[in-house]
């Protein structure tokens, strides 16, 4: 069974032929569309490394079939910056060194954008709670929490909402 799905990625419309309807959005983004910001970590929605936004909401792309993304607006890590200007959340993670190896960083940034869309001024407890299903093995939790707090401040100051400009 072959089908074709259309959705937008980072503001661009794409049509993808799916000869196997079980293919995940993560697989299609990375292998067909060359978007390697989202990472494969567990394939079971346990670690969050693969997080993308679909219609503004965070989604674990490893358990979301591409065929289910029909008509959706998908945004990946690559789609956050405005040209060379990083999104305030990206900027905050760089300034606060919110990564060691950085493999989980995609999930942390995408989840932060979703959090700040829901709650532009989260407390530290709210930040920790929002990230409780994103795993970091390097132990960078403290810097990541600081990055999120800074991102909230930068976004409030710059008037950015959600993922911003796209």
């Amino acid at each position: 069974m072959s089908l074709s799905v259309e959705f937008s990625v980072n503001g661009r419309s794409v049509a993808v032929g799916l000869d196997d309807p079980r293919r995940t959005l993560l697989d299609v983004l990375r292998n067909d569309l060359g978007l390697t910001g989202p990472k494969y970590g567990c394939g079971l929605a346990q670690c969050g490394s693969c997080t993308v936004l679909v219609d503004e909401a965070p989604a674990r792309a490893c358990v979301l079939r591409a065929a289910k993304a029909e008509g959706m607006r998908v945004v990946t890590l690559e789609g956050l910056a405005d040209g060379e200007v990083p999104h305030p959340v990206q900027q905050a993670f760089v300034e606060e060194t919110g990564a060691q190896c950085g493999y989980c960083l995609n999930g942390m940034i995408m989840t932060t954008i979703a959090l700040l869309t829901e709650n532009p001024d989260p407390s530290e407890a709210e930040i920790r709670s929002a990230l409780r299903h994103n795993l970091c093995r390097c132990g960078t939790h403290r810097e990541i929490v600081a990055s999120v707090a800074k991102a909230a401040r930068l976004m409030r100051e710059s008037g950015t909402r959600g993922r911003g400009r796209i």
Partner: protein
Amino acid sequence: MSGTRAEAITVYRETGTHRETFLRLDADGSLTAFNGHVDLGTGIETALAQIVAEELDLPLGQVRVVLGDTAHTPNQGPTIASETIQITAVPLRHGAAQIRAELVARAALRLNAPAGEIETIEGEARSANGSVTYGELVSGEAAALALDPGAPVKAPGDYRIVGRPVPRVDLPGKALGRHVYIHDVTVPGMVHGHVVRPPYHGREAGDFVGHSLLGYDEAAVSAMPGFIAVVREADFLAVVAEREDQARAIAEALPVDWRMPPDLPEMRSLADTIRCQPATARACDRSGDFARGIDECDLRAARTYVWPYHLHGSIGPSVSIADWNGGRPILWSGTQNPHMLRADLARLVDLAEEDIEIRRHQAAGCYGRNCADDVGADALLLARAVGRPVRVQLTRAQEHLWEPKGAAQVMDVEGGLLGGDLHAYSLDTWYPSNRATNLGLLLTRRVIAEPRPSDMGDRTIVPPYRIPHKAITVHDMAPIVRAAWMRGVSALPNTFAHESFVDEMAYEARQDPVDFRLRHLDDPRTRTLILRTAEEGGWEPRTAPRRRREGRMAYGQGFAYATYVHGTFPGTAAAAATWVCDVAVDMETGEVQLTRVFVGQDQGLVINPDGVRHQIHGNVNQTASRVLKEEVSFEEITVTPSSWATYPLATFEEVPRIETMLVERAEDPALGVGESAAVPAAAAIANAIFDATGVRMREAPFTPERMRAAMGIHRREDGRLQGSADHAPRLSGAMKPATWFGRLRSKGIGLAAVLGGTLSLGALALPIQRAIPPTSAPPASSFSAELLEKGRQVFAAGNCGDCHTAPGGAPNAGGLEIVTPYGTIHTTNLTPDPETGLGRWSLEAFERAMRHGISRDGTHLYPAFPYTSFSKMTDDDIFALYAYLQTLEPVARETARAEMVFPANLRPVNALWNALHHDSAPIERHPARGADWNRGRYLVEATGHCSACHSPRNLLGAEKTGKAALTGSLVKGWYAPAIAGDAASAFGWSEERYYAYLRTGLAEGFASASGPMADVVANLKALPDEDIRAMATYLASALPNVPEARLADPAAAARPMPDATHRIFESACATCHEPALASLATAATIPLSRSAAIRSPDDEALKTVIRQGIEAPLALAGRDMPGFAGELTEGQIADLAAYVRMRYAPASP
């Protein structure tokens, strides 16, 4: 590239076989530094850049660091033991100083000034006569300088770049999604490999290794899309396909026959098992006379400390790409040890090391060894076999199961006090680990899989304290399961023993633990560190555990100190670290929360203070997770964790607040900081728990279960907390409904007896029905379009296609296996193929089958075919369906014979069954009800045959009728819940909810169609709204006036006792079922307390969902759920089902 360029100044070293370049300054003024170590995600690249920029007075932006590429970097051994800064950076510093001296000499000539008056600043040489850039000085005059280890370097007092916080150079690219990790590398023409590992997961020694693959069936998968090859060498097995997903699908479909390995030793009694393995004792310290000393003690104690197996747990499973490249292979790798890996690969494929090039990319952090080297061997073997570049991505399960584990360790301590002083101390440590031979070498038998002891159990094995009589012994031994170094190596468990025991002795001596340590330390540098940490970390002196309580919580503070000693014994000291930490212990559940950690650290010269602090934070968080939560579990033959579900890590809500204090020692050499702060962790936490509770924890991890056992808290039989709110009624056999596939299975013998008895009475009296002769069906063109449209709707409403299509088979051509308690039936071919389908069936034959369950040839059909419902259909609908079926694409497909158990294998028995159970009377219209209601009833009871799944069945497999109709049943392991009667009302069904559910598959916040019902709803899309509305009207009309049951409130009600099952739920289920962000688009749509499977009468349906997951039809808005059959054992699934039901449906039977 690494050699001398026409215009460059280089620094090199001759190794005997070739020239290794360390530094190259080009004519554009940029410097490239080559280091044989790699960045394991710690930001070491930035620190190395700082070191060379400092010595050369170059702006940091003009320095590039190349790490680990074998074609360009010197062989400096594996990146272990925090040696990068301490050891491998040294040649870079000297080389940079040499280049600077060369530049000064050239500038002196160019500027006509004495060398002593030349100043180097920001990439320029300046004198009173003017300035010249480094680039200009390099231009036109190449030079190659032999590395001089004695070259004079800057005094630390002059440092301008080293010692300052510098932002990580790699981070902007990572945050923008532009950094190319090894996972993101693509090579032109690349195809994908997927390995199939043997069943002896994680084992590396024994005659079964490399000798267990009995065979595989390539023909079964060679027609799958994208197939390129199956590659096998001894126990190495993999498939290659065009795409990554195809390679995985083929590998998972490949039938493979493995010999099962022998059992592991008993791993639950870890200490005994480890001590029983062959080992060689090696004395590390025999100061004084321990035997005499211990006799002289006025207080003696013997203690055993146990450390578990851990996973390194890289967040990204390993990846590698290989290009055979005509016999001069290139490997793209995230390895920790490029040069060591190259030697292994050379052995694997019989090449010289120099013929192989390894290009190193950053990977996910590894903290020791992960599968990065193993997957390199996989990729290389496959690239050689298929002649194309091959990328291999390991799965999470493969990484978990096969990574060389952080080894378990047992420490037996005996010691004592004389007059309040430590007088004698013995430590025996067993460390079953080695350097983890490359898996590819073992699977292909290039290396014999025999036990290989190693010598790394002696890290920080000698306690730092002044003790007159010591007997320190390491027992060198081979691994039990595959193991290799992990952060802190053996020093962390050894320190767990030292610092717990010393703490215990301090209290025995009625002395403050910090004072007690200081009294036994002479080294002023160590004393300073301990004193300052105690002071700034807020140490509260005490001479007995304080057991501070507030309500159910107990609070305590602990202290521990260690210098991490690495390298071959007696080894080299890295940074020394000291912990003061605070814990809160829940005295009812045994949960330990590490609330604050203060780390004081002495690392000599600090290269990048931010980098050092980040390493401390990482060490604290990761090691706290290891100490409090982590432990590899085992089954009889293998390690078991194959996802984070069964190896949970500390989460953001669990990690402590961290404070740091760096002792400034700019004049002392820089010491490695990659592991030091991890080393005191276990002892400091155990000591804090002792202060809080008076209980000594001597076996890690300190899980709630272990804490409860140590504190004497006993769980109640039902697994709940003492005093928690609700009490779940026990499952009662009497309350379970009869089910096709659950209860009947256990009644098999009784059933046979019943049927047998009946058979002898009358079966033979019931003849096989007459055959109806084959005729050609009318041509498709003879049916009107309206008739065919109607037929299409009947076909959809009857869900015909789902049962009459085999998985992966041609649509409607039959072949689906239906397993019943009486045997296995295969559904028939509905397409108009003349030989195997309905092509020669007359309408009369079709109608007889639909109404009476008799096939055209006169044989009885089994009642798995729901003719008991179809018999109620109108003639018009049956004709429309007949017409529609005759227009389907004909497919030739023979129906396999049913395999029934006696006596159900005798078709005449079906006739008897019919006589007992089949009422073929049509539905009579109910005159008092509206057209809607009557239409709904017809769809539900006739065409839709809802009762086939939703009505419980009697012992003979017949649907129960009357009040029992549609009251719920288990089908194929899925629960078809009550849609009529009190239970349906109590569940909360209503007309609107029925409508939304049947129309879209989702009644918002209430129910979502899943499993077989999802396919039914997808088919119902063919029906007009009126029909869906009619079904909802009819179903709702039959609901009795019973109020909706109150839902379980998991937050308020029974709080489950934290245990392994609770942790599985939290790490595998909660991510989607209790999402951290409400907007999560991949979260479950229905609260678990609403789930029909969870609220069903027994565990079976829930276990099915956990095993299989949910694949929502594309036509519906429903969401998928991954299945966990491959991740959890059957025992874990059963425990999880019980846990979920207790938590979310405590009122269910």
